[in-house]
């Protein structure tokens, strides 16, 4: 029987150095090469590994994005996913994390309707452009499913439950959840493989359904810019960090003394 795993991915600029247009306050996308959000590569790899662990499993990949985001879905199939679904419509544009997670949850419900039950949804920890980490837990909330974010290891999984390790600042939590559930994974969870040749051939052939707001029966008040409660009042590139003070001294002792003097001067020690 196996698991049906849905991986939610996003096509983002292929860099971690995102520039913001100071006039409009939006991300500058012109001339940017796009790729699968790096954190989502770990989500895809983990889904494929779970597929290999649990016989008879299937991996579906889902994205919301403009027509060119189909490239990232094909890339995910090359990396081992079996099928892909594309939520695309002008009406989805400008969505914040609330509207995005709503739209993806409706996409997952549509997948369930068309393809049967989904056991597990896997997201990357966050995207490299938005950086919020909201979407995974948001999807779980919309679906009414349990979720764990910051997962660094899947210890055990079957069709009923999953045991995961969550990385915390002060250690690791080992958590068990009933399925269906959502997890958001860290880059520590695995090292993604190189896309296989057979995967690349599948990726060329795979037929990817495109679903708009009607197809997923979305409430139009909850999607796109209009459905997004977040208002961007201002956004900016943080000013580059200024150079610090260089403490001179002939010996390490002198340098240490200069440092202690400085810290005392600022009443830090």
């Amino acid at each position, binding site marked *: 029987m196996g698991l049906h795993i849905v991986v939610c991915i996003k096509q983002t600029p292929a860099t971690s150095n995102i520039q913001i247009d100071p006039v409009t306050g939006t991300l500058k996308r012109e001339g940017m090469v796009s790729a699968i959000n790096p954190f989502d590569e770990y989500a895809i790899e983990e889904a494929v590994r779970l597929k290999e662990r649990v016989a008879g499993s299937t991996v579906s990949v889902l994205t919301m994005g403009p027509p060119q985001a189909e490239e990232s879905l094909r890339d995910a199939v090359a990396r081992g996913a079996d099928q892909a679904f594309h939520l695309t419509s002008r009406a989805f544009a400008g969505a914040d994390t609330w509207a995005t997670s709503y739209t993806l949850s409706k996409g997952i419900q549509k997948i369930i309707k068309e393809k049967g039950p989904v056991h597990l949804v896997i997201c990357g920890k966050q995207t490299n452009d938005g950086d919020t980490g909201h979407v995974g837990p948001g999807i779980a909330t919309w679906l009414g499913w349990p979720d764990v974010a910051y997962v660094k290891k899947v210890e055990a999984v079957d069709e009923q439950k999953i045991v995961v390790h969550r990385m915390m600042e002060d250690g690791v939590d080992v958590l068990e959840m009933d399925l269906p559930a959502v997890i958001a994974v860290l880059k520590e969870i695995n090292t993604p493989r*190189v896309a296989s040749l057979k995967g690349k051939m599948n990726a060329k052939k795979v037929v990817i359904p495109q679903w708009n707001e009607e197809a997923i029966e979305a409430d139009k008040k909850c999607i796109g810019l209009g459905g997004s409660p977040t208002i961007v009042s201002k956004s900016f590139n943080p000013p580059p960090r200024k150079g610090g003070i260089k403490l001179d001294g002939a010996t390490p002792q002198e340098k240490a003394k200069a440092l202690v003097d400085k810290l005392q001067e600022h009443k830090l020690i």
Partner: protein
Amino acid sequence: MNYFLTEEQQAIVETAREIAEKKIKPVREKHDAEETFPWDVVEEMRKADLFGVYFHPNYGGLGGAGFELVLVVEELSKMCGGIALALAATALGTFPIILFGTPDQKKKWLPDLASGRRLGAFAITEPEAGSDATATRCQAKKDGDFYVLNGIKNFCSNGESAEIYTVFATTDPKRGARGVTAFVVEKGTPGFTFGKKETKMGIRASSTYELVFDNCRVPASNVLGKEGYGLFVAQATFDISRPGVAAQALGIGTGAMNEALAYARVRRQFGQSVLSFQSTQHMAADMATTLEAARALLYSVTRAMDVDMKAAVDASEASGKTVYEELKKVSSGRWTKYSAMVKLFCSDTALNVANNAIQMCGGIGYMRDFPVEKYLRDAKICQIYEGTNQIQRNEIGMMLTKELAAKGL
């Protein structure tokens, strides 16, 4: 240079390059220094389907032939010729099965070799039988439905790591060359063990072992071709496998040049980049020119061979006859001369280039914490194995003489 690769061949190159960059580069120094077999990389190559590029789809392959194998081996060898050998030596062990395997033999062994689940190896060399394979002493005595093997083979690449071995043993020592027979022997067969692990100048990530046969009973159904046809099997195998060694050499040479140019460009002496000196540029020009000539020869020969090979493989799948039988029908002639030429030219070129790459880098090029000296150590074997370059010249010379004789000259 545009070699007009198909979309699939381009994907093969990109995949092999990504494996080389992401999975081989970080570990090549460790496997070389510690002389450990690169199982970590083998697993990545399996997952990426690289082992299957030259197999027929009936065995889970991607339907390519020698050229696809050459593309993979070249890309991997640009990073590490030793690690690339895990795949290339598997191909050498596999070709006899592809060429001479019956439908049952092919079904039994090719799927695991195509997926990389099991590695292959080829064992012909013995202490007294190097270039002269007619001096084979390892014996195979018929006993009912079995042959009993006794003796040793040495210098076996992928030894101990591989599970499927093509082994050459004599079934009739009196008959010399016509007494040798090829067998498939699986790891784990009682009486088949591993002796000395060799320590080598280069390709240290590759395991080179002595194979020991002590009353090892091999089913008669594991004979490839017929009894006494072993050296035909070996020669026909070398005809199509030598481009694999050539590709390894070409990759090593190209990798050495890439490292040397990158260093010479940033290295400054007398106030200028070392690459800006004319003496350095001439050295670089000779490297690039000879490598490109080697590549052009290798690619054109392999592609021409593949026209016959693919036709023969397809015909064999339909007829149930061996690929070798079908090859004799479609082929205009044997490939011995051209496969010897590519092996000879690519490996001589690689050694020159790797040698000059060290020279271009100066002292740092000689140091083991810089990647260039390893290329020279790895390049050297390409002039020796699968027939020394002296044997290649013999074969080319012999073929030229035969061609003249055929013209009545």
